[in-house]
Every structure is written in C-alpha cells, then in structure tokens.
C-alpha cells in the first residue's frame, strides 16, 4: 500500500507542474489572439508612426515606442508630461500650421523629417489630446526637388517669352544683314576681280566672264535677280566637300548619306555647326576614326540629321558645352537632340526646315 501511494504521489508531483505549465501556455496563446489591452498595446507599440495620448493636465495616458524614442531624442528627457513635451516641440519647430481642429508642425531628427499633428479628442466626456508623428522625409525631399524644377521651368518660360518677343525683329535683322552682306560681298568681289584683271598679267578670267559678273551684281542691286546664275551656282559652297575635308584634317573618314544638295542655306549652316561639335567630340572623347552623317528626307517640314561614329561610346553621357549649345540651337530651330548609345554612339538632331 505504501508503495502504491508513493508511486501515485510521484506521478502527481510530476504531472501537476506539467499541467499548470500547459495551462499557462494555453492562456498566453489565447491572450495573444484575443483582443484585449495587451494586444492593443502590443500593436500600437509596433506602429512605425509615433503616437501619444495625454489629458488636459499633461498626464500621459498612452505613448508608443516610436513616440517615446522620438520625444527623448528631441527634448533630451524622458517624456513624463505630454503638455510640456508638446510646448517644447512647438518652440523648436520653424514650420507650423494651425487650424481650428489641429496644429501641424515639422521637425527633423537624425536627418529625417517628421510631421507632427496635435489634436483634441473627446473620449467619454473627457478631453484627450493626441499627438502623432509620421516620417515624411521622402515627401519633403520630393517637394524640395519640385520647387527647384518649378524655378527652372519658370526661368525657361521667361527666356522663351523674351526670345519669342524678339524673334521677329531678330529674323528681320538677320535677313537684312545677310542681304547687305551678299550685295556688298558680290560687289566687292567683282571690283577686286576687275582690278586684278586690269593690273595683272596672265589672268585666267576672261572679259566676258567679268562682264557677266558685273551684270549679275547690277541685277542684284536692282533686285532683279531671282535665279542663281551659272557662275554663282558653279561657285556655290559644297557642303559635302567642306565637311569631308574638315573630317580628314581631324583624322576622320567621313561618309555622308542623303541628299545634302537639297538642304537650304539655314539647314546647311546648322549641319556644319553640328558636325563641328560632333566631330570634335568623336575624336577627343571617343578616339573615333570614322563618322557617318545621314540626312533624312523632309517629313512634315522636319529633317533629322544623324551623326554616328565608331569611337568608344560614353559610359555616362553628360552633355558638355558643345552638345549643350547644340541642344539649344536645335530648340531655337524648333527641333531637338537625342542620343543613341549602344555598340556605336550617335547624335540625332531633328530640326524644322523652313
């Protein structure tokens, strides 16, 4: 009998703590999955935003971990009184907005920006103050970037307005100057040719050719000439030759595609200026030895010129002074510049052809 009792005693001694432990574990498990004060506090403590509730006299009803950490960092002390904490924060902020219902203010801590909101709640006939803090660093940085971009846009708009206001005058002055230059140049040329013909021996120019030049010039002065004379056509600048020779001087072999002869004076000048920049960059930065310039057909009043080279493509294209001035010129001509970077590097310029 004694032995039996001893056995029962031993079993019960072992089982009771085990059962009690199991009961405690079960209770804890149930508590975690039952909504109660503990589970609510647990959830609030793990919010990324800061939250504090306090009464009118400052007594803190509830404060979560995020707010606790933030207030300790900003005030330098443990938050013991909600009212005093808020008053101190409000003296520190430089950005504040008050409405009837709430006060919003901005503070920074450890390089991050926090938007605080202080508002009053009514809970069971008691005024309770709520302070929240949300990390709005990304929003703040985006807003700052937007402000910079707005300034740049406003400046660009002002420049465009100024340019447009004077565009007509500028075009008229340029045309006037170009006409004056053409007449003066052709008159000067024929005068010099005449003197050369009169004073030098063994001149190749014939009397008939000289007279034809004089007739052309007088026609220009009287505004009679609308067609290009045979002489003028013969001496018209050769875009392809000019660019090929320049490329050769730089050690570049140049191929030109498209009908460059159909390009007017303005477009030809644009092509030359763009080619100068592209050839210089291709040789200096890409060690190129070959370049291809392709001129597209006119479509909807636009032409595209493609400058491709066999040099080393840039790893990270940051347009320098030359390409930036090209972009500006293209925009002024109603066009744009884009870049192709893959096995070969190419600059594509689209312009409005008048």
């Amino acid at each position, binding site marked *: 009998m004694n032995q039996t009792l001893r056995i029962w005693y031993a079993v019960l001694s072992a089982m009771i703590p085990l059962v009690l432990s199991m009961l405690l574990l079960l209770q804890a498990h149930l508590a975690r999955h039952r909504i109660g004060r503990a589970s609510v506090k647990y959830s609030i403590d793990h919010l990324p935003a800061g939250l504090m509730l306090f009464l009118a006299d400052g007594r803190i009803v509830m404060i979560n971990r995020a707010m606790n950490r933030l207030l300790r960092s900003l005030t330098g002390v443990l938050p013991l009184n909600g009212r005093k904490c808020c008053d101190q924060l409000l003296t520190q902020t430089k950005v504040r907005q008050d409405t009837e219902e709430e006060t919003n203010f901005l503070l920074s801590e450890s390089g991050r920006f926090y938007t605080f909101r202080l508002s009053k709640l009514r809970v069971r006939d008691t005024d309770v103050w709520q302070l929240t803090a949300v990390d709005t660093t990304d929003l703040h940085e985006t807003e700052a970037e937007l402000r910079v971009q707005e300034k740049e846009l406003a400046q660009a708009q002002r420049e465009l307005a100024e340019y447009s206001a004077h565009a007509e005058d500028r075009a008229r002055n340029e045309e006037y100057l*170009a006409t*004056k*230059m*053409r007449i*003066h*140049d052709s*008159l*000067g*040329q024929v*005068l*010099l*040719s005449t*003197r*050369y013909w009169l004073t030098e021996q063994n001149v190749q*120019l014939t009397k008939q050719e000289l007279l034809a030049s004089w007739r052309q010039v007088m026609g220009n002065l009287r505004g009679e000439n609308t067609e290009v004379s045979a002489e003028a056509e013969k*001496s018209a*600048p050769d*875009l392809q030759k*000019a*660019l090929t*020779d*320049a490329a050769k*001087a*730089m*050690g570049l072999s140049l191929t030109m595609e498209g009908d460059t002869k159909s390009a007017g*004076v*303005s477009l*030809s*000048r644009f092509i*030359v*200026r763009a080619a*100068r920049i592209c*050839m*210089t960059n291709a040789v200096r930065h890409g060690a190129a030895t070959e370049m291809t310039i392709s001129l597209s057909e006119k479509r909807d009043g636009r032409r595209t010129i493609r400058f491709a080279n066999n040099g080393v493509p840039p790893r990270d294209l940051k347009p320098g002074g030359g390409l930036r001035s090209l972009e500006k010129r293209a925009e002024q001509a109603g066009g744009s510049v884009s870049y192709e970077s893959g096995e070969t590097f190419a600059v594509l310029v689209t312009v409005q052809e008048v």
Partner: protein
Amino acid sequence: MEKTKVMIVEDQELQRKMLEEILTGSGRYEVVASIDNADLADLYVETKEVELVLMDIYTAFGADGLEASERIKEEYPETKIMIRTSMPESAWVTRARAAGVESFCYKDVGEAAVLDACDRTMRGESVYPEG
C-alpha cells in the same frame, strides 16, 4: 627659315586662290589650310597648328567669321587672326578688337599691303583701320 603656318578662310574662290599665291610666293608663309566656311575654322587651327588666320567675315552658308574668330581666340589665344572684309562696318571693327583679333584690313589692298599686314601682325603689331 621656318615658314609661318597660315589658314585662309574665304568663300570666294578667286580671292582664296589670289591669297594662296601671294602668301606662298612670298616664301615666308605656308598655306596649311584654305577653306570657305568659318564655322569649321577652329578644327583646322587645332589639327594644322595654324599660327595666322586670314578670316573673311561673311563666308559659306552665312558662317560668321567674327563669331569664329571669337571662338578661336578663346580656345587658341596664341593663334593670330587678321580679319579681311570688303565692308567698312565700324561695329565689326569694335567687335574684332573686343575679341582680341590682332588685325583688321579691307580687301581693296594690293599684294604688298596684304603681305605687309601679315608681317606686321606676326611681329606682334596690331593693324587696324584709322578712325
């Protein structure tokens, strides 16, 4: 004696050939480039090590010799420039001086005067019209 490397920028072919003959015939100058478009001038200045540029103002496709001169003086200040024009525009003389262009001459001068202006420019003188 080492010859001075010269580039001619002139859109009128006859003018260009005249200048080439005058300069080469003097024995003091070597014409390393002779082009009709001022917009391409600075490419040649760099690649041909040009010491003196004879620059017309109105060149092929309306390229502006004064603008090209301003660019050259900014990038290659050692290169000397002599502007040649048939148009006595005082504004151009002012602009040429401001850009640092060494000399400014009118085209209606004879061979001797052209060579004299070039020689004086290379000696460091500044040859500009009076008045």
